[in-house]
Structure formats: C-alpha cells, structure tokens
C-alpha cells in the first residue's frame, strides 16, 4: 500500500467487505468447484452483515469474484427492484463501489435468488446463485455422512425415489423448482430455488455459474459449456412450465417465465414477464403487449 493511500482516510471496509485472505479462501473453494462440476465444496463461510436467507452465500461468492471493473446486476425472482435485490445491490455499491446495472447484457456479474435471465448469457458473464439448501438428497437421507458417500460413489437411486413419489401422488412429476439435475454425467446437483423452467438454460451455458450456500457452507459450480441434464423417467420425461396461448401484457413476449398479476377483486388477471429487464428492453424496442398504455395509444 502506498504512502499516499495510507495517509488518505481509511476506507470503512475492505473492497467488497470481505478481507483478502477470506476472499482467497473462497476463491480456492470456487476453483475446486469449477474443477469438479456439481461437487459441493465445503468452505468456511463468514458472518455477513445480513441475515441468512438474504443470500449470504451468494454475497460471499460475489464479493470474492468481483473486481473493480466489474458491472453488477442483482435480481430476486426476475426483478431488480425487490427488497432483497436492492439491499444486496446497495451493499456492494457501498463496499465495492462497482458499476451497477439492471441490464442483463451489460452485467459481468449477476447475482440471483431464483431466476436465470431470459436473455442468453455470454462467455464474459458470471451468474452467482444464492442457495438455501445445497444437498439434493437431504429430503430422503438426512444423514450428512451418508449423502456424502452417495455422492462419492455416484449412488443416486434416491433421487428417482423422490420423482417416483411425485408421480405416484400427483400423476406426474410435480417438482417445479429445485428440480434435480445430473452434471456432466457424474454429480447430482440441486439448482436450488430456481424454477425448472430455467434448468435447460444451465445446460451448456456460455457463462460461468457459481452457487453459494451461506448457512450450509457449501460452494459448487458449473463451468461454461457443462452438461446439465434434468432427471426424469422414460415414460414421464422432463418438461418445463408452459403458459399456452399467453403473451406478456406489457411487452407481448411468448414462451418466457410469467408472473401472474391480479388486477381487481373480480379476479381479472394478466401475465407479465418475470424478468423485468427483459420486459422493459422489449418495450423500449417497440414490442408492446395488449395492456400496455402505449399499445392502446398506437392502436388509436
């Protein structure tokens, strides 16, 4: 550190809050995760100045990969403006002073709680997931020693037991989020609260995908172009959520992940893109949905 820096006012925080030693430790865990795609790497998670459930795992991963020239986007569900997304964005604005954006295409690092943006991610981008429960076998095998062994030996019959139960109970695979995937034919991984709609986007993604679980102290990763296959049965193949004959009320998009918005007490509703940046970008490009104020104007 130069004399000039030392004599200046000391910063309140180290860059991106975590000290450099902690970041190096987390980066080592990330590198290990990248080397063994889908494998859950234990790491010494730190206390963060926010409660668990607010994405402390994701925040630590983001803090460790963020550089001064990065451009950060934070989403919760698909939106940039929810409380969780805003508070994490503010946290990094204060501690790292990096450039912030809501535009998927501009971001170099995107932290997310649920969604993968509709716009295809590119090589220069990193997607960081906030993960509550990293262990896909947990619900049927609570013993950590046993699940670790199952991963080590690739014993994954249990995952299909869960899917079997779904079909026996509901007539189809009813799991709609945290839908288990097989990574590179080796490790079964929980994509965490992400809807299964987004599972196909993980497959051979050009972007680096990193997963951080704060409370459970696990990091895992999907390097670019990794095989990610959603598990299923031959006679009950994997399908994504579909909204037939539905278009976004604001931008007219079809085949995207929709949020349903209730309009009045009479039960009228509309569907809009869950990915708010995608929706706004389309509108600015002139795509308008039937309930868009500009649409009515244009029709007149």
């Amino acid at each position: 550190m130069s004399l000039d820096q030392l004599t200046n006012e000391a910063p309140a925080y180290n860059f991106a809050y975590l000290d450099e030693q902690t970041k190096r430790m987390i980066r080592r865990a990330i590198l290990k995760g990248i080397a063994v795609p889908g494998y859950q790497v234990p790491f010494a998670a730190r206390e963060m100045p926010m409660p668990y459930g607010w994405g402390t795992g994701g925040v630590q991963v983001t803090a460790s990969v963020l550089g001064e020239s990065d451009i950060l986007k934070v989403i919760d569900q698909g939106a940039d403006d929810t409380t969780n997304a805003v508070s994490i964005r503010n946290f990094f604005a204060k501690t790292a002073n990096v450039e912030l954006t809501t535009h998927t295409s501009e971001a170099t690092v995107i932290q997310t709680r649920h969604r993968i943006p509709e716009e295809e991610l590119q090589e220069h981008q990193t997607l960081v997931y906030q993960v509550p429960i990293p262990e896909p076998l947990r619900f049927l095998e609570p013993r950590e020693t046993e699940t670790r062994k199952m991963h080590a030996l690739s014993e994954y019959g249990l995952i299909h037991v869960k899917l079997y139960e779904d079909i026996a109970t509901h007539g189809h695979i009813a799991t709609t989020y945290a839908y288990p995937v097989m990574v590179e034919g080796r490790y079964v991984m929980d994509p965490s609260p992400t809807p299964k709609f987004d599972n196909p986007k993980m497959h051979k993604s050009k972007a680096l995908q990193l997963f951080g679980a704060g409370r459970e102290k696990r990091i895992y990763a999907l390097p670019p172009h990794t095989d990610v296959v959603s598990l299923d049965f031959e006679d009950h193949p994997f399908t994504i959520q579909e909204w037939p004959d539905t278009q976004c009320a604001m931008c007219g998009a079809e085949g995207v992940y929709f949020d349903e918005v209730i309009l009045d007490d009479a039960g009228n509703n509309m569907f809009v893109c869950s990915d708010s940046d995608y929706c706004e970008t389309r509108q600015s490009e002139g795509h308008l949905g039937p309930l868009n104020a500009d649409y009515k104007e244009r029709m007149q």
Partner: protein
Amino acid sequence: MSLDQDLPLLSVKNLSHFYGQHLGCKDVNFDLYPGEVLAIVGESGSGKTTLLNCLSTQIIPTDGAVYYRGRKGQSDNLYEMSEAQQRILLRTDWGFVRQHPRDGLRMNVSAGANVGERLMALGDRHYGKIRDTALDWLEKVEIQVDRIDDAPRTFSGGMQQRLQIARNLVTNPRLVFMDEPTGGLDVSVQARLLDLIRRLVAELGLSIIIVTHDLAVARLLSDRIMVMKDGKVIEQGLTDQVLDDPHQAYTQLLVSSILHVGS
C-alpha cells in the same frame, strides 16, 4: 450350474473382530452353500450380531477373510473389495432384513417406492415398469396391492417386515442376511412371516444367514445351525442334529430352556 452348487457361496476363514480390547467374535470358520439357510444363535453379547455385521461388510473385521462367489463364478475376498463394490453387492446380489423396520425401510415414502428403490439405483428409468414390478412383489409377500401408495408407517409390524423382504428381494439376490426378523412380533404374526420366508427360500433358492436368539425360529427355517457364546462358535452342524442331540453343555441349556418355555 450343477458345478456351482457344489462350491460354497460364502467361505469364512478365521474371522475375528475386536472392539479395541473387547472381543466381538473370534476364529469363526464356515462355508455356506447355495440354497442353504444357516442360523447363528446365541444370547445377546454372544458375538452373533458382530459376526453378521462383519459378513455383510457393515464392519471390517480385525482379522480373517470372507470369500464370496460372484455370479460369474469368481471368488473374491469381501474385505479386499472397494467400498463401492461392497455397496453394490449389498443392494443387488445381497439383501439385509433388519429387526427394526425403521432401519430397513424408508418409513415416509410409499411402499411402491420402497420396493422400487433398488431398481432405480440400478438404473431402471421406466416408472410404469418399476411400479408393475413393485405390485408383483407386494403380491408375493402377501400385501394388498392397493396399499402400494401408502407409507409403511401406516402398516402393521408384520406387514412392515414383509415389505422389507420385498424391498430386498426385488433384485433377485442370492444371499440374504436377516437380523432377528421376527423379533418384536406377536406369535401368530411371527408364524405367518416364517411361513413366507420358508416359501420364498424354496421358490427362489435363496441362501440365508439368519441371526436369532430364538431356537424355534432356527429350527423352522435353517438347514444348519451355529451356536455362539462369548464371541466363539462352540457348536455347529445340521440343525436337527444339534437341537436334538446337543453336545455342548451350553447348547443343552439353550435347548432345554426353549423346551421348558414351550411345554
């Protein structure tokens, strides 16, 4: 095939296990032949459970070897196999029926999934076929097929044990370990379970190693018997011979006490 029948399925050589200084079992030797049912009897603390856990690779013994003849005819020392190989044996070529259903079943998933689990672990990926096989096995163990989607915690103790048997036999194992499978069941329920096991042994040509403290169970099920005391095998032979004409004083005592209870 006839040649295979002449060779032991399991060959136990000088097996000993110590828990630190404490003796679990010592210098156990025996052969088990295909289709044979062997009962290991003794009181609690006799070493019979330690022996069963060693044979089934739940415990790696302090000393000795156990050779298992695989389906391709090769004979391998269990303790020189990798853990992965041992676990594959345990869920394919072997079965293990536990005394307490909660140790051998997944109590919160349906009976069908309990039976289907091994098939799925082996890579079966057709729901309809897995379900058909499960239905078939529920019928074989005398569980009403309309209970297929019910969780075993809603079953009676006898049904739970029958479900455990179905869950184990679905991969057509050649060797099944049983640890006091009738323990804790009412006498009439025990009798039905024993009948079922006898029928399955006869139909499927299973080899069974059953641990029990109940000589009546041993007499009903087993071809051969091994009596254990203080970690050692003190007497072994054909079940009827040992029980009708025990040579060791301890065995005589065991036999007389059951006769006493029975009369």
